[in-house]
């Protein structure tokens, strides 16, 4: 079974802090994704990566950056956290070889920015 883990389930940070959210997958998947999920807005794609050191902006990249130095690890960085970044953050991975884009999600990190 694919396993996607995220570094924290709950996180509380202060405005202006730099925040790192880490995601690790154990199935050698090429693709990795970061979403945020807010009530009524659904899942919105922040960034995704097709390969090590490759990244592309999703629909809402402003205020975020990402890093993918190893295939299994994809980090989301909030350079200067703001209260409007309080949200549930979900990481996912998928394998292009499957040709179906099925994504496997981590458990999520509930981030609160005070």
């Amino acid at each position, binding site marked *: 079974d694919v396993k996607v883990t995220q570094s924290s389930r709950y996180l509380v940070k202060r405005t202006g802090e730099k925040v790192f959210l880490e995601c690790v997958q154990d199935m050698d998947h090429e693709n990795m994704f970061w979403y945020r999920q807010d009530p009524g807005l*659904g899942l919105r794609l922040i960034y995704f990566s097709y390969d090590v050191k490759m990244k*592309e902006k999703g629909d809402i990249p402003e205020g975020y950056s990402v890093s993918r130095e190893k295939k299994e690890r994809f980090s989301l960085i909030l350079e200067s956290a703001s209260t409007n970044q309080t949200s549930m953050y979900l990481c996912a991975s998928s394998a292009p070889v499957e040709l*179906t884009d099925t994504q*496997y999600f981590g*458990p999520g990190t509930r981030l609160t920015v005070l």
Partner: protein
Amino acid sequence: SQKIEQNSEALNIQEGKTATLTCNYTNYSPAYLQWYRQDPGRGPVFLLLIRENEKEKRKERLKVTFDTTLKQSLFHITASQPADSATYLCALASGGGNKLTFGTGTQLKVEL
């Protein structure tokens, strides 16, 4: 622009009945459509995929239909149980590059 619509109102049904959830889309020509289940505070979990040339797909008590003319997929859970209570999301491939766009989901509550 591309849009996926799912009923935002929660669906409440009695145990044992069939639940039917709807996913409508516009400005897509998807090769396939996926359904996911999400429990509160957890990440979505893949359930079923149906391809454009398949009218219907089944997996245990789950059934999905896909009508590319109507641009609609229906997701059915037969003999529903309280354990089926969750939010169900549909998703379509978008923009290439293995990306998916998700609907906002419909919450299903199965009552005793």
